[in-house]
């Protein structure tokens, strides 16, 4: 090994360790008794060890209810938006109708509209529909995912049209072609968009901040923030709650790392 490579390896290893340090510190403090955590010099091993902080979370916020809310919103938004987007992308890719390309261009142009611009009118709409402080207020607007429609349409366009034209001649319906032929060939695109949609919903803070007010309707990110704002819980319990939110996400990420990174690289969406 050349010395240059050794230096490079050492430097990058240190960068990696520094990136992880705040997370390790978080988890270690959450596993220590209140009186021992946050000592100086910082402890990097949870000794003495205690799970008491995790038992304290439910006394401050309805953690499991919030986790369930997060799951409901993320699953409904993801499944729903994928269904809507796949149908639309098939229409825009394969079915001729008047004004099709102009309609598609209009939707694409809307990608430039930041969500903060539409949020006030959407808030007023939700208020008129009596949906403030409901989970619908979060997943209903998430069903329209213009980027996913664009992404799927691009992907469908790479699938040879001879395939579906042959199936049409054999009498297949458009539904059959989409669900039995095109979707089975679109696994990577579906995975990429589903992962990004789920992640976006799971980590969403702006939407819940605006639409939700009662504790048992909240999702995890907004629930965490209320925990630090009022409640008067100890810092170790706050750390336990953050850990309980962060660690499952990191584990899921480690399992699906390859698919996750591929989806980020292919779509180029920043969280």
């Amino acid at each position: 090994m050349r010395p240059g490579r050794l230096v490079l390896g050492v430097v990058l290893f240190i960068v990696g360790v520094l990136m992880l340090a705040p997370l390790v510190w978080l988890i270690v403090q959450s596993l220590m008794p209140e009186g021992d955590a946050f000592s100086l010099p910082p402890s990097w091993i949870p000794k003495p060890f205690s799970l008491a902080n995790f038992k304290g979370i439910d006394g401050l916020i309805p953690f499991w209810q919030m986790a369930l809310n997060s799951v409901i919103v993320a699953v409904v938004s993801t499944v729903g938006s994928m269904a809507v987007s796949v149908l639309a992308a098939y229409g825009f890719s394969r079915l001729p109708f008047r004004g099709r390309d102009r309609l598609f261009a209009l939707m694409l142009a809307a990608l430039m509209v930041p969500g903060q611009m539409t949020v006030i009118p959407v808030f007023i709409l939700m208020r008129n529909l009596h949906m403030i402080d409901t989970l619908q207020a979060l997943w209903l607007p998430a069903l329209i995912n213009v980027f996913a429609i664009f992404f799927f349409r691009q992907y469908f366009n790479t699938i040879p049209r001879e395939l579906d034209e042959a199936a049409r001649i054999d009498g297949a319906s458009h539904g059959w072609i989409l669900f039995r032929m095109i979707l089975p060939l679109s696994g990577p695109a579906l995975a990429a968009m589903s992962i990004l949609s789920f992640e976006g919903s799971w980590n969403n803070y702006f939407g819940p901040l605006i639409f939700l007010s009662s504790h048992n309707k909240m999702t995890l990110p907004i629930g965490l923030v209320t925990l630090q704002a009022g409640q008067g819980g100890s810092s170790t319990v706050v750390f336990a709650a953050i850990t309980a939110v962060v660690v499952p996400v990191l584990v899921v990420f480690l399992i699906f790392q390859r698919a996750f990174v591929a989806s980020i690289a292919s779509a180029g969406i920043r969280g």
Partner: protein
Amino acid sequence: MTAAPSLVSSGSRANTGGPGHRSWVGYAFVSPAVLLFVVFILGPFVAAIILSFYSWDMLTPSKFHGIGNFTKMFSDPTLYKALSNTFIFAIASVVTHLVGGLLLAVGVNRMTNKALSYFVRTSLFFPFVISWAAVALLWKYVLDPTFGIVTYYLGQIGINSPNWFIDPHWALTAIIGIDWWHTVGFTFIIMLAGLQTVPTELIEAARSDGCNGWQVFWNVTIPLMSPTIFFAGIITFIGAFQIFDPVQIITPNGGPNNSTLTIVMYLYQQGFQAFQVGYASAVSLLVFAIMALVTALQFWLGRKWVHSA
């Protein structure tokens, strides 16, 4: 993310439906998306434009206000503060992400040890998958002046930390640092993907012509990477310009002397805390105009600067 006209037309193999083809099938397939699009994007977009000409607090009846909201914007020092903070943040974010992401990607790309490379890639990307809410709460503690680890270890090497979120000179810098920690993994992944498209033959050819590592990096890698760097820069700018979560969570009132007040945070304050719906809509129109300008600039500069193979 880019919407060139060529992406809209169906390409060379246009679908020839013929006169007998029933176009209602097409409408049926796109109708759920179009309905949702009109209700949640197009309608609200138009409504925001209309609202910006009104004065409304969401309770009493709205009043037509002409261009009053827009003239108010020109003489609103807090808006200027928010805009300048946001531009400083976005530019600092672009520079630090591009430099950091590119150097890390070049480094990792040259690594030969598989396990070490996996460790570095994973630890760089870990923070990116965590929600901003958790990241912001955690960093409030990490930078705490009494028991935060950054304060402690900087003290060990003789650097006195400022009181990050209280000191108006340092609050925005702290947010820039936290944002870097959270999202540099994304920039890194984009850069790494771009690097892997640079043909190794070109690099080897440059090396055999006697170029050193730095010359290869500067004269071969960077030009060939320019589309990726450009794309990453635009995405970073657009994301950074809309920064809200960490500043709202860490400094809910905009920080000392509004030193961390960003434009989207100001929009939120006006719309959902002061209930100045008309004025907030006018500000949101300004955000949209800036986004549109950046996108237009993207096309224009992209055509001029970016090296295309």
